[in-house]
């Protein structure tokens, strides 16, 4: 038995010591090349002199010269099919006429996706670009302050071997940039996940948060559309644990973790936080550790120290399989809103002005009350559209009397004005406007609407009644008119006065109707540690896909130990590092389990 073991060891040693060992030396000498691997069956041979007859030297070995326009002293060789590259290398290496021999290494262009809005994705490649539709300042980046994805994508873009569960408000799984990358749940979960809010199998996103998070992880890349995720190909499981307002519970979150773990997820993203230590959720995350699942969470958006009395869970949990992520801006400063904590928050990642997929789209309908200066609302008198100076600017208002703010409105009046708007289909709609009013006691301004056309005060719903005198222009006042979506919607104002007269009247401004509905083609910019955590989740999936033998502990270690040291994170996170995809891909743990056997 011992003899057999020694024999096998010797065999291995001989293999290492011969051709393959030399192959490795040659490859190391060509360390500047880009990419990995080489063309099977091909070599590049440099001869000391072209006069030595390179073609003859190749032919005598049974190899062929591939026509190339190279220098005269090197040739591109195709070896015989029966030989490996390692064997063929050996046949040239001892030839005194040969200067050097090497494999025909494979190079490739640095990978950048062709998605329409990829230039906006500073987190993936920061060129110092300003983000269109930004909502966080500063919106001027520092080139190179990014996650080094361009390099990493040279090596891997497909993370679809790793299931990433997004525990959030659901996902619009029909979105054009997500649909190809959603988890296939089979007949049991045909909608790519499940829903622990409504307790059904439909995790459609009614809020938008989860869809944005999912796009950061795995919006399909290089499809010429929208944006690109960390992973161009992904396997995203939608687990709805937050309702349409963005709230979840211990019950919904814990069921979500258990579902994800039980259905094959190896990475869980929870861009979620609460202030209370939650032993039940903690136990679920601990159980996920036993199933080798990494849990990536957001640090929270209170600009607070998680370790200093402003605890945020699950970030503050100490599970080994948990990574807590805070947010960096485009200059790699800690985002103004971002939580931190030297004992609880592990790493930083981009979290401001992040463009990603949107579940919902909002249509804005505005109205200036006139066409070429003439009131274009239906009115039997009293109302007019006119310009009104507000500070240094003039805006169009809907006024009664027409001379507002001069003059007074009529006494004994019931003056109505209304207009019908065709609203697109959607899930919700709001009416908003500002108002300035000065009304005598007993007089009023009513606001109403009706589904359909016609006088909304004859048949419709009263939204509000204003009385008295406002302190200048007030508002905007916002009202839910969701019943109108997909229909004509008539909005009206009604000035009702008694016998007395002498007050200034009313002026309506900033009139707007917003309709929100599902969209499969929309994108939006958001800020938050919620946007930073999925950057790390995408990287976790990438690392596990690249290193199939990785454990969740390996993934978390590779992310936190190999990131880029960033001054703004020093003393504010456990690692002081921002995540860096290429560095994490290149990370190698030291060998373990050394043992010696004496012969």
């Amino acid at each position, binding site marked *: 038995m011992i003899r057999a073991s020694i024999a096998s060891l010797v065999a291995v040693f001989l293999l290492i010591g011969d051709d393959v060992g030399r192959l490795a030396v040659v490859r190391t000498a060509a360390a500047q090349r880009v990419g990995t691997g080489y063309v099977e069956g091909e070599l590049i041979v440099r001869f000391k002199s072209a006069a030595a007859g390179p073609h003859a030297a190749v032919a005598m070995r049974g190899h062929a010269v591939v026509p190339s326009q190279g220098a005269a002293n090197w040739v591109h060789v195709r070896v015989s099919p029966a030989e490996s590259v390692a064997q063929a290398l050996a046949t040239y290496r001892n030839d005194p006429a040969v200067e050097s021999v090497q494999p025909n290494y494979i190079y490739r262009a640095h990978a950048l996706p062709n998605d329409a809005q990829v230039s906006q994705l500073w987190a993936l490649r920061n060129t110092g670009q300003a983000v269109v539709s930004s909502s966080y300042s500063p919106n001027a980046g520092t080139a190179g302050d990014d996650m*080094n994805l361009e390099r990493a994508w040279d090596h891997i873009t497909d993370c679809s071997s790793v299931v990433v569960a997004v525990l959030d408000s659901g996902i619009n799984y029909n979105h054009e940039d997500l649909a190809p990358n959603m988890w296939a749940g089979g007949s049991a979960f045909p909608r790519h996940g499940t829903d622990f809010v409504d307790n059904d199998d439909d995790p459609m996103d009614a809020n938008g948060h989860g869809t944005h998070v999912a796009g950061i992880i795995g919006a399909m890349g290089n499809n010429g559309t929208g944006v690109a995720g960390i992973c161009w190909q992904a396997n995203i499981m939608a687990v709805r644990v937050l309702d349409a307002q963005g709230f979840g519970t211990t019950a919904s979150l814990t069921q979500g973790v258990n579902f994800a773990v039980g259905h094959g997820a190896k990475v869980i993203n929870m861009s979620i936080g609460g202030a209370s230590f939650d032993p039940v959720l903690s136990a679920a995350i601990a159980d996920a550790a036993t199933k080798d699942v990494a849990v990536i969470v957001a640090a929270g958006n209170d600009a607070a120290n998680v370790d200093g009395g402003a605890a945020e869970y699950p970030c503050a949990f100490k599970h080994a399989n948990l990574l807590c992520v805070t947010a960096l801006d485009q200059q790699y400063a800690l985002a103004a809103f971002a939580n931190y904590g030297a004992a609880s928050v592990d790493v930083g990642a981009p979290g401001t002005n992040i463009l990603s997929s949107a579940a919902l789209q909002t249509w804005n309908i505005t109205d200036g009350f006139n066409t070429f200066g003439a009131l274009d609302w239906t009115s039997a008198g009293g109302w007019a559209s006119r310009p009104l100076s507000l500070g240094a600017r003039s805006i169009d208002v809907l006024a009664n009397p027409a001379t507002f703010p001069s003059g007074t409105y009529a006494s004994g009046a019931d003056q109505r004005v209304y207009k019908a708007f065709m609203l697109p289909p959607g899930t919700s709609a709001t009416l908003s406007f500002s108002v300035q009013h000065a009304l005598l006691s007993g007089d009023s301004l009513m606001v109403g609407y009706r589904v359909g056309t016609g006088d909304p005060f004859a048949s419709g719903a009263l939204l509000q009644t204003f009385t008295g005198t406002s302190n200048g222009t007030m508002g905007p006042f916002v009202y839910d008119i969701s019943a109108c979506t997909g229909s004509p919607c008539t909005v009206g104002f009604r000035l009702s006065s008694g016998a007395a007269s002498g007050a200034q009247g009313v002026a309506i401004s900033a009139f707007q109707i917003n309709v929100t509905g599902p969209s499969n083609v929309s994108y939006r910019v958001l800020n938050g540690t919620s946007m930073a955590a999925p950057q790390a989740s995408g990287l976790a999936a990438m690392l596990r896909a690249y290193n199939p033998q990785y454990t969740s502990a390996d993934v978390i270690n590779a992310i936190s130990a*190999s990131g880029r040291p960033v001054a703004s994170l020093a003393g504010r996170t456990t690692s002081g590092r921002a995540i860096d995809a290429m560095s994490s891909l290149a990370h190698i743990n030291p060998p373990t389990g050394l043992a010696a056997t004496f*012969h």
Partner: protein
Amino acid sequence: MGPAAVTIAWAPSREASVNRPGGGYEVAIGGLEPIDVPYASGTAAPTSTTVTLPSGTHAVTVRAYGALDATGGTTRTFSAASQVLAVRLK
């Protein structure tokens, strides 16, 4: 006792770059030239090497290396060294 053959073995790396062309291990034995144990073929790089050592105590460490580097090139990236294994030959 004179020189003796010793097989040094270690647990396989879970990093893919170690177990691909360009990857492998480097064994350092105090005072001796490091021994390269490169990936050769198959699913994993070798995880042992046999050397002949003179009598005495030898400090052995192993580093893993891969073909990727943090800048995206293929210059070898080494791990930190393993814990030291003291090999004592009488």
